[in-house]
């Protein structure tokens, strides 16, 4: 009984906090503590969201397609890199530092260069998303592969297992939990990356919408699109969690046991 109560309290804690923040925010706006043009009220934002709903959905679709393509390529590249670095120490030594360097370059600085090199189409956007997503995936997978118990590898070796068998039976599985943790990050990066990429130009997408409403001094719409982006990220991250649960049944049972 006590446990049940606690579980309910736990479940509503976050929604309650968010609701609290929204109420305070609405009050601040209502009593004009800060002027509307500095901070639109939640009601205004919702209103803006509803009135521009179909337009937002149109742009969101474009952004999602870009994010998905970029993420897909990013994950593939990350996977290939991780496998190569795991299997060949020399590649690891040669490539890893270069990868780290690529991550210290401010995305927003190279974004315009990408357009210059790759044009306006979807290419520079996908490349930008790849740049921000492949790294967490590669690192997550690599660490996952390396987390494979050395003795477990020895055991398989003693059975005469090939490299590929060892990879298949131990490394892949050992890396899944880390992989999904990274994927969760990458998914969120991919959405934000798509938005930034769209600022670079194009015809549609939430990033384009954002720049235009900004120029129209429509802060309520600005907030509406920020929230939409946030919501999309959250939904995608949640999907990753669901996917992880399906792919790692052994973790679930452990969790239940706790």
């Amino acid at each position, binding site marked *: 009984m006590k446990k049940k109560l606690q579980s309910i309290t736990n479940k509503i804690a976050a929604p309650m906090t968010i609701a609290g923040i929204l109420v305070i925010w609405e009050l601040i706006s209502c009593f004009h503590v800060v002027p509307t043009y500095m901070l639109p009220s939640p009601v205004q934002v919702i209103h803006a969201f509803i009135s521009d709903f179909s337009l937002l959905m149109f742009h969101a679709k474009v952004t999602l397609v870009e994010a998905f393509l970029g993420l897909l390529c990013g994950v593939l590249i990350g996977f290939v890199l991780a496998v190569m670095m795991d299997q060949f120490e020399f590649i690891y030594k040669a490539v890893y530092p270069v990868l780290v360097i690529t991550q210290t370059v401010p995305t927003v600085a190279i974004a315009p260069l990408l357009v210059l090199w790759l044009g306006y189409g979807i290419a520079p956007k996908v490349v930008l998303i790849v740049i921000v997503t492949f790294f967490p995936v590669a690192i997550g997978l690599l660490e996952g592969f390396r987390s494979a*118990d050395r*003795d*477990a590898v*020895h*055991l*398989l*070796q*003693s*059975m*005469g*297992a090939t490299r590929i*068998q060892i990879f298949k*039976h*131990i490394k892949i*599985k*050992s890396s*899944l939990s880390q992989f999904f943790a990274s994927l969760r990050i990458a998914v969120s990066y991919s959405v934000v990356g798509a938005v930034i990429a769209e600022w670079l130009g194009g015809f549609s997408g939430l990033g384009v919408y954002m720049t235009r409403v900004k120029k129209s001094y429509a802060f309520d719409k600005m907030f509406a699109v920020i929230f939409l982006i946030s919501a999309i990220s959250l939904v995608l991250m949640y999907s990753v969690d669901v996917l992880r649960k399906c792919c*790692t*049944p*052994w973790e679930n*049972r*452990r969790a239940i*046991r706790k």
Partner: protein
Amino acid sequence: MAELRVENINKFFQDKQVLENVSLSLHNRELVSLLGASGGGKSTLFNIISGLMCPDSGEVSLDGNTITGETGHVSYMLQKDLLFPFKTIEDNVALPLVIKGMKKREARKVAGPYFQEFGLENTEKKYPHELSGGMKQRAALLRTYLFSSKVALLDEPFSALDTITKSAMHKWYLGIMEKIQLSTLFITHDIDEAIYLSDRIYLLTGNPGHITEEIIITEKKPRGEEFLLSESFIHYKRKIIENLEKKLQ
């Protein structure tokens, strides 16, 4: 006919020698134990025999063929139970078959009948963390058994089992040894266990470790429980303890 022969093995880690001129043999259907102080190099010797490590000098041969540094010739059960947390028990035990190229379904079918014999009924679909320590060790033993090499290396296989289960496993293991063509090299810290199970016992002592004694247990197999409490058992035990203590000084 001698199945396994280890000759003049020397092994260094960096500058520290851990094995010095270790030679031993394991004959067909024999169970031979290695007793010795912790850190004496027993697990290292097993790693060498299984081919996971190369000795700095010396040779390992099986049925007359050199297998030094080659894996896949002997079944090896490592010191930890080492079940894969992400595989069900049946997939864990069937793994050696899959590694040898069998289809997963088929491998499970082959492994199935042994679950009862190993006291693992109804654990097929469970994950290792859902099993008790003893069950895990039995599952690891079943996996080693399913590798079906003629030679098995067991590194403290029963150390996590409680007394009753342990003695049940002892009896079962002696039984299986009678039935199948299996030679076993066995590491343990439990002198009773070594005497009860073994045909011969090697004492691996000193630093670097070397074989200082070979004790032959002449008691006929299968051995009953009364052997454990017999005069000759105590005689063997006293001899081993004296030897180990002597080496320590």
